């Protein structure tokens, strides 16, 4: 299966560590993906707020590039990009006159646009279980963490067609495979405030405060995410939230791709830990590692494991 990869603007800027860890993880698992040629920003909520046609055509430019390149699927690690790709494709392909209009704007045809998926959708498939379990090199079973999915990984359900919109499990399942018993908590799909961090930071502080309170109540020492905006907000706004809570927070916020990569023994440098405002390494380094049983076993049933 040929996979296209659409990093999106955040992964080239503030969320470089998500891009680095996704690429390192996929290379380690020997999943090949090609960068989408000539990609542009998805337009997020800004383009559709100015013009409906612009809001639909902008993400579809990228989808049309993916169709032209012949990819079967496009991987979008940013859940806002993911949502706008899927939303625009869905709206336009169901409405022939609108489709003709968008094709005229793009000066490109849209015949059978390939679906866009989140990397979690690819990796949490049962077909990867053996490979992922077999690639584990570090014992992270002591890590007390909650999975935070935010908005668009599974919502709205009718459009995303993946996981449960109120109680998603894909990231939890994936982390269970590498030995982490993720904690249950009630705010895994609450909104972090997304881009309001730049314009209404006090709102984002409010929204993220609820998330931290709930994560702490569940006994979490870290929050694991799958969206660059969730990460940016939770990682960068902790000082203001701590001031409101009246106690220090310093809770590491990690991408699932970093945690998986770390469990597989990838070098810290490839996973971008140094880029975090709240350094996750003190927490990760105090977990017991590596797995004594696996290291001494010498052989592996799984072709991809380097053990």
């Amino acid at each position, binding site marked *: 299966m040929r996979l296209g990869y659409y990093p999106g603007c955040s992964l080239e*800027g503030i969320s470089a560590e998500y891009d680095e860890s996704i690429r390192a993880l996929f290379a380690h698992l020997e999943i090949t993906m090609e960068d989408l040629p000539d990609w542009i920003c998805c337009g997020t909520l800004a383009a559709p707020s100015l013009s409906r046609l*612009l809001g639909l055509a902008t993400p579809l430019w990228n989808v049309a590039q993916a169709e032209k390149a012949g990819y079967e699927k496009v991987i979008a690690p940013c859940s806002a990009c993911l949502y706008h790709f899927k939303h625009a494709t869905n709206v336009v392909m169901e409405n022939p006159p609108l489709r003709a209009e968008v094709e005229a704007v793009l000066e490109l045809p849209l015949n059978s646009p390939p679906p866009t998926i989140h990397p979690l959708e690819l990796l949490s498939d049962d077909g990867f279980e053996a490979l992922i379990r077999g690639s584990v090199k570090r014992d992270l079973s002591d890590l007390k963490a909650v999975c935070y999915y935010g*908005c668009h990984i599974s*919502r709205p359900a009718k459009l995303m067609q993946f996981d449960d919109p109120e109680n998603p499990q894909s990231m939890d399942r994936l982390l269970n495979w590498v030995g982490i018993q993720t904690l249950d908590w009630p705010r895994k799909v609450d909104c972090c405030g997304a881009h309001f961090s*730049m*314009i209404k930071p006090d709102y984002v502080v409010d929204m993220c405060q609820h998330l931290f309170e709930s994560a702490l109540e569940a006994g979490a020492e870290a929050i694991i995410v799958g969206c660059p905006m969730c990460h940016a907000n939770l990682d960068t706004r902790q000082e203001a939230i701590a001031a409101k809570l009246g106690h220090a927070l310093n809770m590491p916020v990690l991408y699932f791709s970093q945690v998986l990569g770390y469990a597989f023994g990838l070098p810290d440098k490839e996973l971008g830990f140094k*880029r975090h405002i709240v350094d996750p390494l003190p927490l990760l380094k105090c977990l017991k590692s590596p797995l004594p049983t696996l290291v001494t076993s010498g052989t592996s049933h799984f072709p991809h494991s380097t053990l």
Partner: protein
Amino acid sequence: MAFRDEIQTLSGQNVNLCFQCSKCSSGCPLADKMDLKPAQVIHSIRLGRADSVLNSQSIWLCVDCETCTSRCPQGVEPASAMSAARVLALQKGIKPSVKVIGIYYRGFVDNMRLNGKIHDASVAGITQLLTGQLIADLPLAMKLLVRGRVKPPPLPLGGGRFRKIYRNALAREKESRA
């Protein structure tokens, strides 16, 4: 065209399906900051109260988390209706009632015209400069810079693709409204 029909044309949402259970308002993470709650926005559209909807803060405060859309038992998508209301407000020359959000969306698209992709640090910096929030976030910006999460702005060479889409889309929309 009646206001309700304009919203329906833009968003595909039939607000007459709403029976005011207010699940959308209950789940909305920003409802406590809104002047009209999501269920009130939908009801106001139904009543044709264009002025109150298009001048509301709510349509600009919607962050598109889709909780309302996901939970509506009638399959109405309040987030899509809010998005349509934003477009309609601008078309009618009504300035965004939450000024900073209007500035941000405009600046975001202007930045896309330079390179096709946005340079996130420029968008954040310019928005915060124009909205008077730059000073408060400067220490954070410095921390991000030190950690390599602020990249230097690229030369504005790759914007042609997006500028073409922008021109075509706006011209076609103007034509169809004329």
